[in-house]
């Protein structure tokens, strides 16, 4: 007898289900079930993944949810299993969940009312549920009469075969008693019975995971969870045969599952999603209006319009018209226009930069015709999917304004951000599973420390080793349980986050396509699927990404206008200034966009950029793709003339010429397939996608065959074919689009330009838009100081909340803002600045009296970092930090009414000034940096006597020369592509020294590498092509200062 499992929850019920949807689909396949309905709690979070796992296995993936409904008949809200019958039912379910969710605060539960259930019942089938369902609740509260009343009500809501009495059998007496009552009621009301297994996990072993998740949900340990836990492990996917045996006395309950399954005709692909139309003026169509805008934009962008440009635009417009995408382009154009009108910097990135239409509309800043970019990478007829346009915006308030504009334009239920599912990773799994098993925090702390979070993972980076390293005995049964749970929960969803910027908009109402819920940020709505789910279901999204550098560029331009009295227009910046390229070639790029990392700096002297296209290459060069595909070094060697420029085949010269015969960009891969194997543009893009993610061996083989057939037709010999196939398959996974690289290169150039020409403004803007980039604010400040910028300390008499510029155009200095004072709230900092603007402060008591928002900890911190030093004492002397600390003890607490308004003069204290070391410690503790000399400068003499060279001197040494260098560790990195090598950057008063740590040196003393703030490194100088590293042989801790120098560690 056919059995369909029509009531299952996955881990997307967040702590109330223990298997991912794919595991459930595979279990259905293994148990030969023809269909399963995924009914997660108050959501369709897992439905797309279940659908796409079930489809190739020929399993019908029914859609539904357990929806929480509160009513007087069941006292507390209970979970109603609702199955979607048709598209109307699907829309109703989405709207019902959305309605319930949007009235609750984030992470709070809210229930629908029975009236709302009635309003949205069309197209849905209701089951009476399990122990958390309405029938069990009614029986519990008022016995059989209450249950009768409930059924009468439900029959009115779900008439004509849309209500089933659900039976589950998990070998529990109380459940069987309930079943007896349910069977009686079903007979009385002539309702069909339906057997389900109320599945909560794929196989019986996952019951343990569910128990652990239950403890997390109830914030308790397994030892104290008692009846909250499962009584047995029977709620897994069972075969039809097993279910028929369990329900052998009620075959009709099994038969009804197949009958109901056949009536559930809705499949997730028929969502009814439609991208909104753009409102055009009367007499216009979307395409005619788009043509007008493109025409207008084209005249502005291209001063002389070439035939090539005209042809390309016409080709794109025809395809846009054919694919009915004019509305989409107009909507993105509308967002860009909003940004321009409101002076918000905006720049399209990604494959959109391959489109001349996007360039003409002002969406992107790179001319794809001049750069000969490949349109098919962006849009193709064959691909049958939506194009992807990403907009970079200044992070923070301006991006928020744009997001709010989209909400406002399309309505609260017409637009939402895509979700981001947070899953269990090693550290989270170890912490949470340890907690439920009752392990002590210090033991969990040890485990968390050894659990690797480096990007690079060696063969030892697994849970078994982490446990051993943390001193756990794996033979101990509870520890073995802990280890097993950790392994099992990895990758399970933990909760829903928010994607960094994907916005989905919809014609009509988005809430009838996917349930929406409130995001953690106020005034934001998030949909229940992530970006991959949206792409799989062909839901179009527009990425509105916040880029710290955009905000910094925008602020730099404002500062330049005010302080330099000059106007910089980034849109018309000619990327050809020699002094900018000089700085880039010298890797003088701390703070710039994309080309500031250690690895970028190490390749800049080799790549030797002379013009804009060299920067486009530079941005793409230091990426996992070219590095893993072993393209980076051959390119650099050719660039330096150390290797001959060759091509795999003469036909590829036009494609690979610009990158010296080495493929670096995705577009080149596409063109290679087009030229060598006669692929159409769309087919080539399909090839890239097939190879890029979720690749399967079978698909790879098919593609290889197709490539080889084409190449053979073109007379390419087999050995050359091998080379091309290898190029294509190794590169497709990580390749970077040339268009994306060009967009980023523009920002890289702009940031380098500002750094070279307007250092004070640029540094100030960088410091006001942290966190961003590769280096900490302390490093940015030290770099700016080495370039001659005067940086002044935080001062209550001069500092604003943000960092500011002081002085005249030719002698500008940077004043640190109050934002850098640890623990100081922005509201308190701004209140201080407002009070000072009314009149200057005359004493600490004056500050305390006029800025009551400052608590004593704030005043103490201001005193500690020297921000009160400019206040004079009674005798007119300046306070020192200890004087100020002495004074502030009196303030920041409640002032007795009698003393309100009394201003006391500050008097100096009997305390000694802080010593140099104390000031350094205070600076780093209180502001994360020092504007005084670098801590290493105070030790230079001693170090020199010990033969330690400075970072500046290291660069002068020969290759292979032994040397010792010392400094503060400012970055630690173990890239996934570097075979376990660790890179450290040390900083001293002369600059940065790059250290290479081989795995054996690291494993000799990992804690010195990972933890020490100052180290001394003995090693051999690697000085090649103007790039200098010290290959470490010995690394020792160095006692320089107790100052808390921060390192940016990249994991």
């Amino acid at each position, binding site marked *: 007898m056919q059995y369909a499992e029509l009531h299952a929850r996955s881990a997307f019920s967040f702590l109330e289900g223990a298997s991912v949807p794919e595991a459930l689909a595979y279990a259905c396949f293994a148990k030969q079930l023809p269909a399963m309905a995924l009914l997660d709690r108050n959501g369709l979070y897992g439905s797309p993944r279940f659908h796409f796992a079930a489809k190739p296995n020929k399993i019908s993936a029914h859609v539904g949810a357990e929806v929480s409904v509160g009513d007087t008949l069941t006292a507390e809200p209970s979970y109603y299993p609702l199955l979607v019958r048709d598209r109307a039912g699907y829309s109703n379910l989405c709207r019902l969940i959305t309605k319930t969710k949007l009235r609750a605060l984030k992470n709070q539960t809210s229930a629908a009312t029975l009236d709302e259930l009635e309003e949205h019942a069309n197209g849905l089938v209701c089951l009476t549920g399990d122990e958390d369902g309405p029938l069990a609740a009614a029986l519990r509260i008022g016995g059989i009469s209450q249950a009768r009343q409930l059924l009468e009500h439900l029959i009115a809501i779900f008439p004509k075969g849309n209500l089933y009495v659900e039976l589950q059998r998990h*070998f*529990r*007496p109380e459940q069987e008693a309930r079943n007896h009552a349910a069977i009686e009621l079903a007979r009385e009301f002539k309702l069909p019975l339906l057997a389900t297994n109320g599945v909560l996990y794929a196989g019986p072993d996952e019951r*343990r995971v569910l*128990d652990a998740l239950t403890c997390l949900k109830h914030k308790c340990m*397994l030892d104290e969870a008692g009846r909250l*836990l499962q*009584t*047995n*492990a*029977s709620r897994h996917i069972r075969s039809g045969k097993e279910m028929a045996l369990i329900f052998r006395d009620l075959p009709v309950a099994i038969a009804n599952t197949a009958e109901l399954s056949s009536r559930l005709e809705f499949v997730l692909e028929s969502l009814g999603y439609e991208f909104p139309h753009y409102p055009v003026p009367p007499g216009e169509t979307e395409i005619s209006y788009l043509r007008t805008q493109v025409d207008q934009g084209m005249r502005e962008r291209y001063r002389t319009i070439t035939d090539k440009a005209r042809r390309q635009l016409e080709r794109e417009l025809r395809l846009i018209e054919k694919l009915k995408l004019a509305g989409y382009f107009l909507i993105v154009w509308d967002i860009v226009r909003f940004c321009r009108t409101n002076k918000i910097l905006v720049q399209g990135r990604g494959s959109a930069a391959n489109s001349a239409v996007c360039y003409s509309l002002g969406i992107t800043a790179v001319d794809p015709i001049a750069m000969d970019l490949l349109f098919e990478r962006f849009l193709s007829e064959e691909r049958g999917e939506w194009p992807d346009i990403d907009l970079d915006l200044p992070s923070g308030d301006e991006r928020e304004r744009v997001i709010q504009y989209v909400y406002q334009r399309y309505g609260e239920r017409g637009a939402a951000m895509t979700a981001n599912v947070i899953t269990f990773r090693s550290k989270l799994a170890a912490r949470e599973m340890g907690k439920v*098993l009752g392990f002590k925090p210090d033991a969990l702390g040890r485990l968390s420390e050894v659990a690797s979070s480096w990007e690079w993972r060696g063969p030892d980076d697994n849970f078994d080793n982490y446990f051993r390293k943390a001193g756990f005995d794996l033979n101990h*049964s*509870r520890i073995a*349980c802990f280890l097993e749970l950790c392994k099992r929960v990895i990758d399970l969803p933990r909760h829903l986050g928010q994607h960094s910027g994907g916005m989905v908009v919809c014609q009509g109402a988005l809430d009838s396509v996917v349930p929406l819920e409130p995001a953690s940020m106020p005034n934001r709505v998030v949909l229940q699927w992530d970006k991959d789910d949206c792409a799989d279901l062909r839901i179009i999204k527009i990425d509105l990404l916040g880029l710290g550098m955009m905000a910094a560029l925008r602020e730099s331009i404002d500062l330049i206008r005010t302080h330099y009295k000059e106007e910089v227009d980034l849109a018309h910046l000619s990327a050809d200034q020699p002094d900018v390229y000089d700085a880039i070639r010298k890797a003088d790029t701390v703070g710039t966009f994309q080309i500031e990392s250690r690895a970028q700096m190490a390749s800049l002297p080799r790549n030797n950029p002379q013009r804009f296209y060299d920067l486009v290459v530079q941005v793409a060069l230091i990426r996992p793709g070219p590095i893993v595909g072993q393209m980076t070094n051959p390119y650099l060697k050719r660039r330096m003339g150390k290797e001959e420029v060759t091509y795999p085949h003469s036909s590829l010269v036009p494609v690979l010429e610009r990158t010296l015969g080495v493929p670096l960009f995705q577009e080149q891969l596409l063109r290679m397939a087009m030229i060598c194997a006669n692929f159409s543009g769309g087919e080539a893009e399909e090839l890239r996608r097939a190879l890029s993610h979720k690749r399967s061996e079978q698909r790879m083989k098919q593609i290889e065959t197709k490539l080889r057939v084409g190449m053979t037709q073109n007379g390419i010999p087999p050995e050359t074919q091998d080379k091309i196939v290898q190029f294509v398959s190794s590169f497709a996974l990580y390749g970077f689009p040339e268009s994306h690289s060009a967009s980023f290169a523009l920002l890289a150039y702009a940031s380098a330009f500002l750094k070279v020409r307007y250092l004070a403004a640029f540094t100030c803007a960088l410091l006001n838009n942290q966190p961003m980039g590769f280096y900490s604010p302390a490093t940015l400040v030290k770099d700016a100081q080495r370039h001659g910028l005067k940086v002044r300390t935080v001062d209550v008499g001069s500092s604003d909340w943000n960092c500011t510029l002081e002085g005249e155009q030719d002698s500008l200095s940077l004043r640190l803002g109050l934002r850098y004072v640890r623990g100081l709230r922005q509201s308190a900092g701004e209140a201080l600045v407002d009070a000072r603007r009314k009149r200057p402060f005359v004493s600490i008591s004056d500050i305390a009296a006029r800025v009551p928002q400052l608590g004593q900890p704030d005043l103490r911190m201001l005193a500690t970092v020297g921000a009160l030093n400019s206040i004079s004492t009674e005798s007119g002397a300046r306070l020192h930090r200890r004087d100020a600390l002495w004074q502030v003890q009196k303030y920041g607490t409640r002032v007795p009414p009698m003393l309100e308004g009394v201003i006391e003069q500050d008097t100096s204290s009997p305390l000694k000034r802080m010593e140099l070391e104390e000031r350094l410690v205070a600076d780093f503790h209180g502001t994360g940096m020092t504007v005084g000399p670098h801590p290493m400068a105070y030790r230079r003499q001693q170090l020199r006597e010990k033969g330690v060279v400075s970072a500046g001197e290291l660069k002068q040494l020969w290759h292979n020369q032994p040397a010792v260098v010392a400094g503060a560790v400012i970055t630690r990195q173990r890239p996934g592509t570097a075979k376990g090598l660790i890179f450290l950057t040390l900083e001293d008063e002369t600059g940065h020294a790059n250290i290479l740590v081989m795995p054996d040196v690291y494993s000799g003393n990992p804690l010195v590498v990972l933890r020490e703030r100052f180290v001394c490194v003995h090693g051999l100088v690697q000085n090649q092509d103007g790039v200098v590293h010290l290959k470490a042989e010995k690394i020792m801790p160095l006692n320089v200062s107790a100052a808390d120098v921060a390192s940016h560690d990249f994991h």
Partner: protein
Amino acid sequence: MTSGNWWKKDEEWRREEWDVALQLSDGVGLYRIFRELRQNAWFVEGLYD
């Protein structure tokens, strides 16, 4: 069928449980009996009033 304490080696249990009615001289007695699967031994857990 019930099971529990799976995370404690010495206290883990797995049971097959039955409620049985016995005809006694003074009426019917309703008992909860169980078989501890690890020991394969039967026990009386309790008597229903």
